[in-house]
């Protein structure tokens, strides 16, 4: 304790001090952000702790609950398992980026219409996941929608209404 590392020491013992932060430019909801991050910083922590975009939630931090679901080039992923340094050349969309000004995204509006949440903690992830599901366009039945939404857990158990909201938006998007 208290030992001051001279220059020589600090280059030898790379883990006596943390490796240097890395410059990272991310494109989120149409805006570029330039940051300096440790390489182990997840995209989820970057959003929440460095950019104050706290709509994306941390549930399990293990890729199991889906609360951190965001869209990367329109595809849904778990932000907790993504290292931010690896997501420079892509367009990231979070729950904050879905509405157009005061006009809600159709999936957001459908969640309100169908009362598709109780506590709301999983809701941003559910909505981003549903947008991803609609982009994919692979669901044929209600069962498919439930299966393809199974990466998003809702401990309040609002599944019935979530399925109804997603199904309505899915069919509307197919009809367009």
């Amino acid at each position: 304790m208290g030992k001051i590392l001279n220059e020589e020491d600090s280059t030898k013992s790379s883990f006596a001090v943390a490796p240097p932060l890395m410059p990272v430019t991310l494109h989120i909801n149409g805006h570029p952000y330039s940051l300096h991050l440790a390489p182990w910083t997840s995209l989820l922590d970057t959003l929440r702790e460095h950019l104050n975009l706290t709509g994306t939630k941390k549930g399990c931090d293990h890729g199991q609950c889906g609360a951190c679901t965001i869209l990367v080039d329109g595809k849904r992923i778990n932000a907790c398992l993504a290292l931010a340094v690896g997501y420079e050349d892509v367009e990231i969309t979070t729950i904050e980026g879905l509405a157009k000004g005061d006009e809600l995204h159709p999936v957001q509006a459908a969640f309100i219409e169908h009362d598709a949440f109780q506590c709301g903690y999983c809701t941003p992830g559910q909505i981003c996941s549903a947008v991803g599901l609609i982009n994919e366009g692979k669901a044929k039945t209600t069962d498919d929608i439930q299966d393809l939404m199974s990466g998003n857990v809702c401990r309040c158990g609002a599944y019935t209404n979530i399925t109804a909201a997603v199904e309505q938006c899915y069919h509307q998007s197919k009809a367009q």
Partner: protein
Amino acid sequence: MNNFTYTKATDVALAVTEVSAQGAKFLAGGTNLVDLMRIDVMRPNHLIDIKKLPFNHIEEKEDGGLRLGALTTNADTAYNEQIEQRYPLLSKAILAGASAQLRNMATDGGNLLQRTRCYYFYDTGTPCNKREPGTGCSAINGYNRIHAILGWSEQCIATHPSDMAVALAALEAKVNVTGKNGDRTISISDFHRLPEDTPHIDTNLQPDEIITSIDLPAKGFSQNNTYLKLRDRASYAFALVSVAAGLEMEGDTVSDVRIALGGVAHKPWRKPEAEALLIGKTATKENFQQAAEALLECAQGFKYNSFKIELAKRAIVRALQQAVKM
């Protein structure tokens, strides 16, 4: 998570040189590695991000097969039109695994290299020969409901968790790799290994090698196939037992058949002698039962997983019946 340094690979030869350093690992989709690092089960000191290497295409091969670039995502593979039409077994197996979010991140090469989901492997507070060689196996006398019934050793009874690899075993895929000593091809049956005395080594891929692609032979069993996955809930869970089955039929007679099991061993499990029992036979429940008995002949369970032996037999019969649309 331990501290590590990070680089982005743009050249495969340089990436292979870089990964030869002690403690370095490749990072692709990260869905398993980042999770294991977060709980200190894996502690690399350097990550080489390979996502930008040019291995993310699906190509036609001259022999009538398909080549899957190792960095193609599981989702892009499962939803590829050629895969859906010519290798529906592979598409079904991939879609039976993980969640849509994970399939969008996870790569085909990474899927093969994912680690076991044995609870004790994940729990750094317990001994585990796979995590820390020589410390012992907590599962063998512990809670072993999800563990192996075939091919296990006294050192490790973990199973390989992949669904995709089970379909690849049935399709007799080949894994193309490159490394310091040049290129080589490993058949899928030789890619994963049994635990024996070295359960910390999952595969026969060398530490300085990288998977570049996976080749699917022309024969895809596209007419008669099924992937049957039995698990504790209907979606987003690992297999207790899974069966990848592909058949070629001449009328009611089986002319070729492949049966690969998941969730039962340290690698996807096949037994060609059991498959051979069906060649030239009529597709009946009785004949399928004979093959299932032969496939599980040497199976041995533990306190909490012996149910898997009967479950696997019945799953094989049902999978074959589904595949021939009985």
